[in-house]
């Protein structure tokens, strides 16, 4: 496939020669422009381009997206290396910083395209534009070889970092780099036909694996600038509350404490686009231990905020009355559900409650910030680097080109780092202290001041005709929207809570989806797979309830519902269409793999569930037993159709990981509120499942597909929890309608 490079694509492709004979394809940023040419070969940490070929044949490929465990550095580099025909054994992958220059009017000009970890979009974006980068590098090398050999470029082929003539003569990319760097960037590139892929579709281990197992990998929390002060903040435990009284005498007396800085009340203007920063008292000290002890020595009283944080029980109590009143938003209304209800032979009704949960990423929020009069540097775990950049710019007034946002590997993310409150705090402190600051949140801080996945209630009623076909589907969803306080008008707050085109929309003639706004001061945010992570539970458990009520096979009911393969319009992320045939396909694969039709041992049960998330089609099948109050997950299968898979080893890690994350969260995790404060302070009160509590393996079935890659990191989560609840019902006839499952199961048994 040949494609012309438009201006947008061409800007990735500036060619740069260096004194060391390296060829650089990509965009030279300020760091590179500031660097003498002769140093370029060595200054790897400042490299802000996509590809650099050294004279010795080493190929450095820049990875632009934040790595949070989704394997994006590996996948991006494989995509570029594939199009280059690079020898993977000679490729080094270098993380890039946020690519930004001034546009001439003081506004940022983003130079590297997609740079975020959100919605499994990294690989699709890379597929869209990074193949060009690799293909352009290859074209330049081929052209340089053509001149050297005195033959037509079209007669040459490439393989394993070599250009090869028709009669078998070879030149290594390293020998051609200097010549190639003198050529102009190509106007057109030819992309490989997929039949010639050697790397894409093959397993690749994580490019940082060696550094991780030797302890050499530097996460943000592992980095310092010279003269850095460590900061910890005592934050107001009441959302929106303020500082009432402070005595810092004892704190100031501790050796090593340098400053105590007060953030007296929430600043509603900060950080951009997210909730106000908490009121707090920051202690800056020479080292972490001193800072922590000094914080403990603060004597503080707090005022509660105007609004109180409510726990799930308080939100659930008035819901009967709330569901009888008018919804906040009618999200979707097909046909006439009331009419379907009147004509129905029978109806099935159920209500599901999904608990508030926290992110609990193992590397808690932290940020290293150095703010000077003419430059700023930020090193932090980030998923939304441009958001972090905006925070720095707004707080410092610096020009875009003066702001350097580094993207170290992040110890988990799960959506927490789409908010940049940690960056705002660190920048404020570094500015005030006039020294570099390394802000650390303790894990207890992270539990108390998270952007939680909110509590959600689904109230579902299905109408069925005499043949037990579902004719009506009424779904009432109540939640505290994640978008409150983020600049969205009231009539758009449902957008983060409900996906109007999620199934069974389009499959049932009369379908109504209403959203009811609940209100609480508890801060909310993005959590892996967003609303899909909870909404799949209600739908997939409810389908099981319908199957049981009508004595139908749960698999057959789902296949009947999905019906003849068709493409339904899907307006949300992952659209524009949802292919019911691909969903039925993964569901059948999962059911077959677990042995759906085989007889089970006494006390064992199988549960199924499927969901469409961000363009990925996933089904789970689980086998469980419950004996003497102990739930055991014996077998787990996840089947996925994610389009073309760039790195199957990485995709399997993502699917297994998301399955286990979904199960761990569903088993026993919830955030509770008492007197307006979060109760959980650590993992002992928020018990992430250990190895012993989860299935020993998860069988992964990947559907071979040639379609554009959909990414992989989030799709494996939503259907895990409902498959578990359905399996528990099959094993025990106890129907769990609440997450987390274990406390509810113990109550019902």
């Amino acid at each position, binding site marked *: 496939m040949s494609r012309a490079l438009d201006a947008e694509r061409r800007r990735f492709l500036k060619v740069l020669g260096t004194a060391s004979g390296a060829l650089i394809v990509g965009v030279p940023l300020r760091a590179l422009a500031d660097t003498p040419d002769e140093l370029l070969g060595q200054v790897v940490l400042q490299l802000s381009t996509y590809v650099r070929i050294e004279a010795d044949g080493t190929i450095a490929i820049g990875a632009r997206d934040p790595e949070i*465990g989704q394997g994006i550095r590996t996948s991006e580099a494989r995509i570029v290396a594939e199009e280059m025909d690079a020898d993977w054994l000679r490729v080094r992958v270098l993380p890039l910083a946020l690519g930004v220059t001034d546009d001439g009017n003081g506004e940022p000009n983003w130079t590297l395209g997609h740079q975020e970890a959100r919605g499994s979009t990294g690989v699709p974006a890379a597929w869209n534009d990074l193949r060009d980068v690799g293909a352009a590098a290859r074209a330049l090398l081929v052209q340089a070889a053509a001149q050297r050999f005195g033959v037509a470029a079209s007669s040459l082929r490439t393989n394993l970092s070599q250009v090869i003539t028709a009669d078998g003569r070879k030149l290594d990319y390293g020998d051609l780099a200097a010549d190639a760097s003198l050529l102009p960037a190509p106007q057109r590139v030819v992309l490989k036909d997929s039949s010639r892929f050697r790397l894409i579709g093959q397993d690749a281990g994580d490019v940082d694996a060696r550094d991780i197992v030797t302890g050499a990998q530097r996460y943000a929390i592992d980095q310092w600038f010279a003269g850095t002060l460590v900061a910890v903040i005592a934050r107001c435990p009441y959302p929106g509350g303020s500082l009432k009284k402070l005595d810092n005498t004892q704190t100031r007396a501790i050796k090593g404490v340098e400053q105590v800085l007060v953030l007296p009340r929430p600043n509603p203007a900060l950080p951009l686009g997210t909730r106000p920063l908490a009121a707090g008292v920051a202690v800056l000290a020479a*080292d972490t231990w001193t800072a922590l002890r000094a914080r403990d020595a603060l004597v503080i009283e707090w005022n509660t905020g105007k609004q109180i944080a409510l726990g799930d029980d308080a939100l659930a109590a008035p819901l009967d009355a709330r569901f009888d009143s008018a919804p906040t938003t009618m999200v979707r209304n097909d046909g006439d559900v009331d009419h379907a209800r009147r004509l129905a032979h029978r109806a099935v009704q159920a209500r599901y409650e999904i608990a508030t949960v926290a992110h609990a990423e193992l590397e808690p929020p932290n940020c290293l910030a150095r703010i000077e009069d003419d430059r700023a540097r930020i090193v932090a775990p980030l998923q939304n680097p441009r958001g972090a950049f905006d925070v720095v710019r707004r707080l410092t007034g610096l020009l875009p080109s003066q702001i350097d946002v580094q993207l170290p590997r992040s110890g988990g993310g799960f959506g927490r780092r789409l908010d940049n409150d940690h960056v705002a705090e660190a920048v404020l402190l570094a500015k005030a202290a006039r020294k570099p600051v390394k802000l650390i949140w303790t894990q207890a801080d992270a539990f108390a001041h998270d952007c939680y996945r909110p509590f959600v209630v689904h109230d579902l009623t299905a109408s069925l005709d005499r043949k037990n076909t579902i004719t009506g589907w009424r779904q009432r969803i109540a939640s505290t929207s994640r978008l409150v306080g983020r600049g969205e008008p009231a009539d758009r707050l449902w957008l983060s809570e409900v996906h109007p085109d999620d199934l069974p929309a389009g499959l049932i003639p009369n379908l109504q989806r209403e959203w009811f706004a609940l209100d609480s001061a508890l801060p909310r945010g993005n959590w892996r797979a967003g609303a899909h992570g909870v909404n799949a539970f209600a739908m997939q458990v409810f389908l099981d309830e319908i199957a049981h009520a009508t004595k139908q096979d749960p698999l057959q009911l789902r296949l009947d519902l999905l019906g003849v393969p068709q493409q339904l319009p899907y307006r949300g992320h992952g659209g524009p269409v949802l292919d019911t045939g691909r969903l039925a396909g993964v569901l059948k694969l999962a059911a077959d793999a677990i042995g759906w039709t085989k007889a089970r041992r006494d006390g064992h049960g199988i549960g199924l569930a499927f969901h469409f998330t961000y363009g990925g089609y996933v089904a789970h099948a689980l086998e469980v037993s419950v004996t003497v109050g102990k739930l055991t997950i014996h077998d787990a299968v996840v089947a996925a159709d994610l389009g073309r898979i760039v790195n199957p080893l990485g995709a399997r890690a993502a699917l297994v990981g998301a399955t286990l994350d979904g199960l761990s969260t569903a088993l026993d995790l919830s955030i509770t509120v008492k007197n307006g404060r979060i109760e959980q302070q650590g993992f002992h009160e928020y018990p992430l499942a250990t*190895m012993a509590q989860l299935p020993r*393996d998860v069988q992964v079935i990947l559907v071979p597909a040639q379609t554009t890659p959909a990414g992989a990191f989030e799709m494996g989560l939503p259907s895990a929890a409902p498959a578990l609840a359905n399996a528990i019902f099959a094993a025990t006839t106890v129907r769990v309608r609440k997450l987390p499952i274990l406390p509810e199961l113990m109550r019902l048994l």
Partner: protein
Amino acid sequence: MARFPQIPPGHLVGEPTRPGIDVTVNGERFRHTGDPALPLLWYLRDVLRLTGCKYGCDDASCGTCSVLIDGKLARACESPMSQLAGSKITTVEGLADANGNLHPLQQAWIDEDAILCGYCQPGMLIAALDLLMRKPSPTDDDIDTIGNLCRCGSYPRVRRAVKRAAIVMTKDAHK
């Protein structure tokens, strides 16, 4: 040009030896002269900059800071320096040999791609080393006793890596 008095080498006088807590970390000897209550976690991270030992929680529940103290599994966050005089401490940085050859566990982790975000893996490796020292051929139930937390869901790959390393290490032991 100013001339400075020449002191014969034999007459060089160093600072007086400061009292402190002597520890050996990955074969190197160090003396801690600060607060004896300092947890080993912050000594390793803030003083020695051995950041393979991770901070992950405040209640000794996550295991990201797992280290070996005199060959026994411990959490660095709950091990004050005052209790460590004379101790030999092994962190993930001390697993590979002096020539940089990886420990079989590290190689197994790479071979099984037991990584995900990677933040908990140094602690997992130390916990696995402790397990294999006690149980050279661990069963699945034995491996289940590794209580380190991972939200990414690396457990099945960690399990396979432990088994792979156990086979290699048992063979090496019989050579």
